[in-house]
């Protein structure tokens, strides 16, 4: 009954996250956008779980939260190291693999 709305919200949030990943210069903002994408996915999972009266959706969302937390930790560590080496976290400048 309210499924479409949840899915729409999830989709909007996801697209916003994708936009942020692709278009932001600041590395931290990219990480934040990734979090946004992940949370959108969580909403999706929980909505479908509620639809089927299954607890599996929520369990899966719990996994995703855990993974997201770990991933952000590692990601921030990487961003920190980039900043230490370059004094800047502008992703446009990290093009050492340019062919």
């Amino acid at each position, binding site marked *: 009954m309210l499924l479409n709305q949840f899915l729409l919200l999830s989709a909007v949030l996801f697209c916003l996250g*994708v936009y942020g*990943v*692709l*278009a932001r210069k600041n590395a931290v903002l990219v990480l934040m956008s990734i979090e946004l994408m992940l949370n959108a996915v969580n909403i999706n999972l929980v909505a479908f779980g509620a639809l089927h009266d299954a607890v599996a959706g929520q369990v899966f969302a719990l996994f995703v939260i855990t993974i997201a937390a770990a991933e952000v930790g590692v990601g921030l560590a990487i961003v920190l190291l980039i900043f230490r080496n370059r004094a800047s976290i502008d*992703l446009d400048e*990290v*093009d050492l*693999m*340019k*062919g």
Partner: protein
Amino acid sequence: MLENAWLIPLIPALTFWGILALGGRIGHQGVWLGIGGVASSFVLSLVAAVEWIGLGEGREAVSRHLTWWQLGEAEIGVGTHIDGLAVMMLVVVTFVSLMVHVYSTGYMHGDRRYVYFFAALSLFTASMLMLVVADNTLQLLIGWELVGLCSFMLIGHWWEEGANSSAAIKAFITTRTGDVGLLLGVTTLFFAAGQNFGIENLNRMAIAGEIRHGVLLAGAALLFLGVMGKSAQFPLHVWLPDAMAGPTPVSALIHAATMVVAGVYLVARLFGVFFAAFSIDAGGVNLVAIIGAITVLIAAALAFVQDDIKKVLAYSTVSQLGYMVMALGVGAWTAAVFHLFTHAFFKALLFLGSGSLIHAVHSNNMSEMGGLRKPMPTTYWTFMLGSVALAGIFPLAGFWSKDEILNGALAGGFPLMVAVGMVGAFMTAAYMTRACYLIFAGEYRGHGHPHESPPSMAWPLRILAVPAAVAGLLNAPGIGKFGEWVAFEVAGAGEIVEHHAFNPSLALLSLAIALSGIGVAAGVYFRNTWPRGAMAGSPALQLGHKVLVNKYYLDNLYIDGIIRTIQYPLAKAAYWFNQKVIDGVVNAFGIAARAAGNVVYEQVDQKVIDGIVNGAGLSAEEGGAILRRTQTGRVQQYAAYLFGAAALGAAALVYFT
């Protein structure tokens, strides 16, 4: 031995190879190998002669033939045909060769190529024997050419001196000129006889009239050209005096007794052909008789103006060969063959005697001899005996043979030839007297100390003196049976030549002429009678003398007139052709190939092929440069590609399910 006569040429051939092969190891002993070979051949020849005589009245020739290969109708093989003529030649050749071999051990002692000389002598003996026993013209031709080769080898034995090698070349080329005729003649008769080389067959067909007369005449004339070359008939006689440049034993063996008579032997052997071709029985004057007669006279004239003893004997040989050829031309077959027989002995004796003289005074010239009677008694009496035999004095060998030639000419109806023979006999006696006077009488005019020759040289002289004296008796009427033993028979026609009875008046006349020749010459030289000094006052005699000294200018004619006018323009034309035409074609090919190569290089290789290869590389490079732009190194760009692809995939998933 008549059956196995092939052994007789084989033994010297084996000793030739033996000396060459073993020469290094056995050194001077190779000489004895040569002598042994010839001696055994001589013994076998004597056995064959005895056997032949022992066959009695109805004796027939013994033939053996081995076919080498057959090509259609033509059959080529080797064989022996032993009849009286062959047996006679075998004995003569081996005997004279043996004497020369023994003589050479003394004469050639210390020579630079002592053993090689004996190898060459063996080869010559083997070749001459092969020629003599031949039963077909091809084998005869091979033997003929081989003896020519040996003559060349032996004349040029001391080839380090240019004059000797020139003489050898002159001999070879002159006889070769005649050999053109011989080769053509052999070929003509081969085809005329139905592709058959056999001699007996050829004689039979010629006498029986199975060959067309024109062909027969052409064949005989061509063969006679070869005879003119080999037997030194006018005008191809010019090589024989020059051949005296070779060692004296060579002159004795080859240019007196054996090789030069090969031509006479050829005519005698193929007499059926000549008899029929020139119609000798009809008594017409023919080419053979004319050439023989001319040769007798011109050579005898030349013998008068020679200073070199060997040249006197050489011209004497030419003259006597003329006698033999003339005799054959008038149909006196037995006379010619008998003269060949006796002449071999006394001419070899004379030559070996001259060698003894040369050895003693170290010079060939009679102007440096004189008064040699006392120091060299053996040489003296053998040389005198040989000279008297040559002059034709009774009872020595030359008298009987020369008389028989005159007899044959008279009975055959050739008065001109009789006259020529008489004049020739006079001249022969005269020039030999001159030679003997210059050598043995008067005071010694040289510078050395002449002494008698060693036994190795003296004994052959003594031994040869025996047949020179008595061989004539073999054909003396009533005493000798030479005419029976050596007769010319044609299968189916029997004997075609007549035997003429002994003519005592003719014999006395020829004896008188010979004695007068001796007498006149003796008067001129010994007693200084009138003709001496006549030359100083008479321009005609001086001109004649000049012509004789220049050998009738024949050499000048041959060398300047014929050879130079042909050789130089021909050589120049050939050279021009070679440089301009042939080299032009070859060079043109080269130039064309080079130009083609250049074109291929510039157009095809550089432009097309390299273009393709470079183009491949360039396109790879350009493609890479273009594609490289996708590698920005910016993570967000890569993420954009990823999300784009995912979206497309999702859309496809949604739309296609």
